[in-house]
């Protein structure tokens, strides 16, 4: 398993390089270093000299991909791509183009993101599993079909509608929770309650349908029939036998998203004023802050690949039939 992990990590390097290159090219197709300088320096009274100086200080006055005037290895190293992108592999994110330390910003902003994303995931999975088990237990009935229709309807409602509707109902009409905001420590609970609830509900449709299918597949298997033949009550059959086996694909599905929970959610964080990482990248794109964009894309890619690796490892751990060679 260790050899497998090392091999997968090595495979990740060229992928990360490719992602870095793609981010770099896409960013600089739309923005030029001049644009970036002007975005940072403002609209009023910006002189050409100030723009040139800004670029020079941050290394944006170098050639983008290849320095044909340099010799040897400097043809590659004396470029914006090398100096501003490839250094990320040492996980030194440096300063944003507006002068703030990116690492510090990420460390500060990931906790509010987690405060929303983690409960949303855990509660969401629990609710999805329970509802899915419930409808599987009455499969084929009117309740099952009605639930399926409700879930499809739920999938059709946009998250934005749910957010605005929930804010209106719970914060304005019923006045149970704040419309938006955030606080540190335990006080955060009253602020994240609504975004978590919205997150759970918005994921309910897809989640229940998927888990229902998984449980339906399991419910017809021999071990379930054996458990019933032993005279166990249906509830025990579901919770002690069906659930643990059905959870294998569910757990691996969770593991793959676990690392990316740090990255937050754009719409939720924006509407609920959660100071997380969700809007960090979008703000950076709007402000043409390439330093943040490249750091966040790199971090997101690393975390996603880490999630995929953990998923594979989890499969091997929970399912003895799978071996990682």
């Amino acid at each position, binding site marked *: 398993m260790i050899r497998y992990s090392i091999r997968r990590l090595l495979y990740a390097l060229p992928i990360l390089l490719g992602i870095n290159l793609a981010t770099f090219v896409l960013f600089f197709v739309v923005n030029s270093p001049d644009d970036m300088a002007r975005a940072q320096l403002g609209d009023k009274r910006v002189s050409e000299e*100030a723009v040139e100086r800004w670029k020079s200080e941050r290394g944006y006055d170098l050639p983008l991909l290849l320095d044909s005037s340099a010799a040897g290895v400097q043809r590659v190293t004396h470029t914006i791509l090398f100096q501003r992108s490839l250094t990320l592999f040492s996980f030194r994110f440096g300063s944003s183009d507006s002068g703030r*330390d990116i690492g*510090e910003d990420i460390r500060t902003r990931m906790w509010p993101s987690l405060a929303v994303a983690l409960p949303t995931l855990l509660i969401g999975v629990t609710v999805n599993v329970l509802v899915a088990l419930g409808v599987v237990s009455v499969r084929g009935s009117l309740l099952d079909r009605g639930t399926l229709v409700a879930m499809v309807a739920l999938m059709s409602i946009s998250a934005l509608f749910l957010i605005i509707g929930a804010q209106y109902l719970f914060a*304005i009409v019923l006045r149970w929770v*704040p*419309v938006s905001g*955030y606080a540190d420590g335990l006080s955060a609970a009253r602020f994240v309650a609504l975004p978590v609830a919205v997150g759970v509900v918005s994921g309910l449709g897809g989640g229940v349908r998927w888990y229902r299918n998984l449980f339906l597949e399991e419910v017809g298997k021999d071990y379930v029939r054996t458990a019933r033949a032993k005279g166990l009550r249906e509830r025990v059959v579901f919770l002690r036998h069906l659930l643990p086996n059905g959870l294998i694909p569910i757990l691996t599905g969770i593991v793959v998203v676990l690392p990316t929970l740090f990255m937050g959610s754009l719409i939720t964080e924006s509407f609920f004023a959660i100071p997380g990482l969700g809007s960090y990248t979008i703000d950076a794109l709007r402000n043409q802050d390439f330093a943040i964009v490249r750091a966040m894309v790199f971090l997101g890619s690393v975390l996603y690949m880490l999630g995929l690796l953990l998923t594979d490892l989890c499969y091997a751990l929970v399912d003895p039939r799978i071996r990682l060679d």
Partner: protein
Amino acid sequence: MQERKVRRLEDPFAWLAAFAALALCGCAERPWNDPNIEFDPAGSTLFQTFSERPKHLDPLSAYSEDEAVFVAQIYEPPLQYAFLERPFRLEPLTLASMPEVRYEAADGTLLPPDAAPEAIAFTRYRFALKPGILFQPHPAFSRDADGGLLHHDLAPGVVASLASPWGLPSPGTRELVSADYVYQVKRLAHPRLHSPVQGLMANYIVGLGELADRLRAEHPEDTYIDLRGYSLDGARAIDDHHFEILIRGVYPQFLYWLAMPFFAPMPWEAEAFHAQSGMQERNLTLDWWPVGTGPYMLLENNPNRRMVLARNPNFRGEPFPARIAPELASGELKEAEGKSMPFIDRAVFVLEKEAIPTWHKFLQGYYDIAGIPRDSFEQVVSYGVDGSAALSAELTEHGVELLTAVEPSSIYLGFNMRDPLVGGLDERARKLRQAIAIALDTEEFISIFRNGRGTPAFGPIPPGIEGHSEGVGGINPVTHRVVDGRIQRRPIEDALTLMREAGYGDGIDPATGRALVLGFDTVAGGPDSQPVLDWHRKKLARIGIDLVIRATDYNRFQEKMRTGNAQIFQWGWNADYPDPENFLFLLHGPQSKVDGGGENAANYANPEFDALFERFRVMQPSPERAALVARMVELVRTDSPWVWGWHPVSYSLHHAWFRHAVPHPVARNSLKYRDIDGPVRTSSQRAWNQPRLWPVLAALAVLAVLAFWLARRRAAPPANAIRPVDGQRA
């Protein structure tokens, strides 16, 4: 055993009890939906929002509104605007009196105050500081028993553990001295600080450009520069309370710059403190942690969530102004006269990116002031027959008050004067531009797209600034006329006549024999902008012009403007200071965007206008100067390099407990004048936000019925159970 645990989880009564307990736990003194739980609403704390995080809090770099709202409360330049006087007037802030101005000839001879501008080689401003002004508490000033600076050699571990400067013990202070102002002037030359006014000031302050060149040469790397070791001919401390600034020639508007944070004092200790190793990695830079003498200091700096200003305990106090313009006078302001400012202890600025949550929180009383969301405008504001704005009954019942103010800004549609079709000063192009100016009905535009939040412009200078005239005397005769004493836009027939005279009868371009095609360069390409763009097309179609929308992204648009490839474009300018020079320079030929990289976006160049401007720019306000302004305005009205769009009118709302709500369109240090009635706010918040519990009670009732039904169902034998027959055991 396992089965029993499972059953307990399924017990509906356990869930009901847990839910009820949770609901009861929530019963507290404060409303459940209060988002400001970390602050006491009864206290003297202001709650408001910001939508864009500031990029800089260093007074040298901060220039935008998003930054000024913080910086202007913390730093104190030498001058400020008399907040309650109109017209706008400068007065001393940290100075004992207004600066003494001396004119000197090239050989240093003192010239009389009425000397001809061309004879004046230098202007020397001499400043006398009020004694006893202290900086806010800050660890940069802390000293040990031997007088050494306590926190200027921090161990890396200490810096790494800091979240803010307030993590260090024993913050100190010291008196503001003239060297702090001189130090800030030298910082204008700092090669890494990128002050937007560096280029402008280098043209005036003697030796500033040379100092910038020297610093750039001596410090090519990003290292700390102790500017005390450098002298600057144009800024000199005479003693602790007197200093002077020497500028080339005459620049009457320089005084206005002295009321802006660019000239706020900077203690060298603060710069040295924040230059320590590891501070940048913790975002503990001078750009994020200001150190000033103003009424407030930055207590919490989290631009991703909120910024908190707290009263500076070392602030000297400043009496509330006694001189109040008659149009602003009220009992509330009269009552505050002479009282020591600031009134508010703390100001909490919360980052709100979305309009809807912000608006609802304002309605719930959790923000003290707010703007009006575009989508809700018609539900909130209605106009009377006389055009006056009034709030909806619901808001009026809540005690919400509306404040409107014409902003010192001009939004206009510009013609690229270098363009062969719409540009140039010949009769054909001038008449074409005039026809377009008539056809674009600004009044209708303001009514449809701005909800009436604007006043039509008749020239480049907005209301409240010398050179702007109200009423029939101030109209632009090219686009408007007076009929029966009322101002009216000229009829479209006048525009058609001008088109004919320009050689475009019925809008036909003689070069092509088809409709004249003009390009509107804009960044507004989204669906929201479509009605606006369609409106422009329809208006110009009335005079036969086929307007082609050339939508592009912001970067390409800026590039077009810099290279002179735009034809017609929309642009705007927000005043730096209330002087006609700050608007007329936008039409000064040498400041053309294409040729000079300046702010003359239309690239307008009229030799007569330029000559008048050169004379006007060095004159003190006087009837002669006013005549020059009038002539320049007349010239640009005739040449029409802009379609004089509108001057925005800001609409802001505040609750009844927000006091001294007087707008000042130019001054940014307004927080110290405001006041809050905390107890009124607390009672209003409670009254407006009582939680509605009936849905919980209804749900509990339904659950109880359900639980009862389930319990009954369990107790009853199933309908298909085998019943024991007589004589048999079940």
